[in-house]
């Protein structure tokens, strides 16, 4: 039900969707919404209900009889008075404009017609306001379904297109000067949907719908966004990932100087424009925060990149560490003292979004697509739909009421291991094969963070190692339900007497916390035992970037046997009674 949604599915399955939404554990609060239509509204109301339920709003509807919006509003209406609407939506369209100018009219006549048409609506809104004293949402007018004067239709005072645009300007003026009056922008919606498709006259002649029935989900989604904003259900903060979300590349591996951000390259431009889009939100009062799997100093260094429009001081909270993201998001919500349902989590990695969406269903986790789509997806989602100040005030009291009853987050996965199981991970760990050599060398020379020794090899050096019987070599690949990560880990051990000396152990940060390292250790121990070795010797050589694996061997059960002045450490593990540690990755058979 969040953007981008499947309109066909929503139209077809609305009955079962409704049941599902109503039976969810969500807490609903009831709102009474009067829909006064200048055309058929039944499908609009039934789809609008779904989107409102998704926002935790349970609507009760009043629907005017077909095209009775004017009569319902202007004359004494016992039924509507008894209904006591919380919000009134006036669903009119260009089909409801009565007096169109014609070629015979003088400029003055057209002006008078326009005034009369506008007055028709002003008296409607004024009467509704006086009688019901509640917010009013009014459609603006969409471009007409034909242009009699061709391109001149938009500039000539007698053109329908010109007439509609001037009528709209008058309505906007009214909106600027009156509180609790909101424009539902169907002029924009019909343009985005495609005006010809929107006006598909079949639905007008057959059922008196002023728009294509297939466009109703888009229409209802947009309308629901205004309603939830009026009722104080807007989001309040962004929780942003860094690598490949705010810039291209991985700062910890690629280094600040190699990040894609800024005007030189197409990708850099795309990230820069996205940063600008995010930064504009700060000016609207939206809180910006960071949640990134990174060392904090790397994260800050990236944000200090000369081309980064977003700087550390733009963010209220920065969580850059190696904890699970859902834990960090809880911490962010707590520090900001807002509910997790006020957060929008923006991350390019579908696996991270999945774990957050399952563990914290109240956090919005939009599928932002590719970098060139990020802005469009977020912009259409309407998380921060802007409403006037008077509504903001009301929203506050509404929020306090809900605060009291806000339930504890429901966690669908009992623990992290269950989540890992749900990823259906399949690994393969094997000796170096010629076809993999290029990637092995590349990964070896590129990995900086999860890299115990940061030893670099040329391709020919690696070729020599590959054929040397004194080495045990492991190349690990990992697949999960989101796709194939390819080769993600490389381990090299040199056999010397009864021990295996681990000269190289590295892993791509993309698969951190997936237990891939445990699977690698299992295989390493197995291979070492097979050639009669009884211990593994690990080395950790600290660099500016590999702080995250400082305690790696300790966590695997190794004992520290030496530490020198530069904090280089040596570790030992007895493997004569080695018990396998990996449970969650299913390993393919050795070939």
């Amino acid at each position: 039900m969040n953007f981008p949604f499947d309109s066909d599915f929503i139209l077809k399955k609305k009955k079962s969707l409704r049941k599902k939404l109503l039976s969810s554990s969500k807490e609903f609060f009831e709102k009474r919404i009067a829909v006064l239509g200048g055309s058929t509204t039944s499908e609009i109301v039934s789809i609008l209900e779904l989107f409102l339920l998704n926002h935790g709003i349970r609507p009760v509807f009043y629907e005017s009889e077909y095209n009775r919006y004017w009569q319902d509003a202007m004359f004494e209406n016992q039924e509507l008075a008894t209904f006591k609407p919380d919000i009134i939506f006036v669903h009119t369209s260009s089909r409801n404009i009565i007096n169109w100018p014609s070629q015979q009219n003088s400029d003055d006549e057209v002006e008078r017609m326009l005034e009369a048409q506008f007055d028709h609506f002003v008296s409607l809104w004024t009467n509704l306001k006086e009688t019901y004293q509640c917010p009013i949402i009014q459609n603006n007018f969409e471009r007409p379904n034909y242009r009699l004067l061709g391109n001149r239709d938009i500039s000539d005072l007698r053109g329908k297109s010109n007439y509609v645009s001037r009528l709209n300007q008058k309505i906007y003026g009214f909106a600027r000067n009156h509180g609790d009056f909101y424009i539902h922008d169907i002029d924009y919606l019909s343009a985005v949907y495609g005006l010809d498709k929107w006006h598909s006259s079949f639905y007008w002649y057959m059922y008196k719908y002023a728009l294509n029935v297939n466009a109703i989900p888009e229409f209802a989604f947009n309308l629901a966004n205004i309603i939830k904003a009026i009722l104080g259900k807007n989001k309040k903060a962004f929780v942003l990932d860094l690598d490949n979300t705010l810039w291209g590349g991985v700062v910890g591996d690629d280094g600040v100087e190699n990040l894609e951000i800024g005007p030189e390259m197409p990708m850099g431009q795309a990230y820069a424009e996205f940063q600008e889009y995010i930064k504009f939100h700060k000016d609207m009062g939206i809180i910006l925060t960071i949640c990134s799997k990174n060392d904090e100093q790397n994260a800050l260094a990236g944000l200090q990149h000369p081309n980064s429009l977003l700087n550390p001081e733009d963010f209220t909270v920065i969580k850059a560490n190696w904890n699970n993201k859902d834990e960090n998001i809880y911490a962010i919500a707590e520090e900001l003292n807002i509910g997790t349902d006020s957060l929008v989590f923006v991350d390019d990695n579908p696996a991270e979004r999945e774990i957050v969406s399952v563990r914290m269903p109240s956090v919005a986790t939009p599928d932002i697509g590719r970098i060139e789509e990020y802005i469009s997806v977020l912009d259409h989602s309407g998380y921060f739909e802007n409403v006037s100040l008077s509504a903001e005030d009301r929203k506050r009291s509404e929020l306090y009421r809900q605060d009291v009853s806000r339930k504890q987050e429901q966690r669908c996965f009992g623990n992290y291991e269950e989540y890992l199981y749900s990823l259906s991970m399949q690994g393969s760990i094997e000796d170096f094969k010629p076809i993999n050599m290029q990637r092995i060398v590349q990964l070896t020379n590129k990995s900086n963070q999860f890299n115990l020794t940061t030893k670099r090899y040329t391709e020919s050096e690696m070729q020599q190692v590959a054929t040397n019987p004194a080495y045990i070599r492991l190349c690990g690949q990992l697949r999960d339900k989101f796709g194939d990560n390819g080769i993600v880990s490389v381990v090299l051990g040199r056999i010397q007497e009864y021990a295996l000396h681990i000269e190289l152990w590295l892993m791509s940060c993309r698969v951190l916390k997936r237990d891939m390292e445990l699977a690698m250790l299992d295989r390493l121990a197995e291979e070492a035992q097979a050639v009669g070795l009884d211990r593994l010797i690990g080395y950790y050589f600290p660099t500016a970037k590999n702080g995250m694996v400082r305690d790696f061997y300790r966590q695997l059960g190794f004992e520290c046997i030496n530490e020198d002045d530069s904090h280089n450490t040596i570790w030992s593990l007895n493997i004569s009674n080695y018990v396998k540690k990996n449970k969650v990755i299913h390993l393919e058979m050795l070939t």
Partner: protein
Amino acid sequence: MTRQEIFKNLNLIFQDVFDDETIHVKESTTAADIEDWDSLTYVTLIITIEKHFHIKFDMKEVSGFANVGEMADAIERKI
């Protein structure tokens, strides 16, 4: 597609739209036979059928179907 297959597909569409797995449409089925079938669900039914079979009904057809059999006739003509 045989007429039998068209009906098999129609049946699934009806079950989806009315959210009722007990529905079994026949040649002679009309709005009177299905509890929730009103003009509103009829619109949904028509657009779902159109998308499913990749066809478009014209206005005359949509106004004229006397029963599901006649719908199937129109589908047969178009696919």
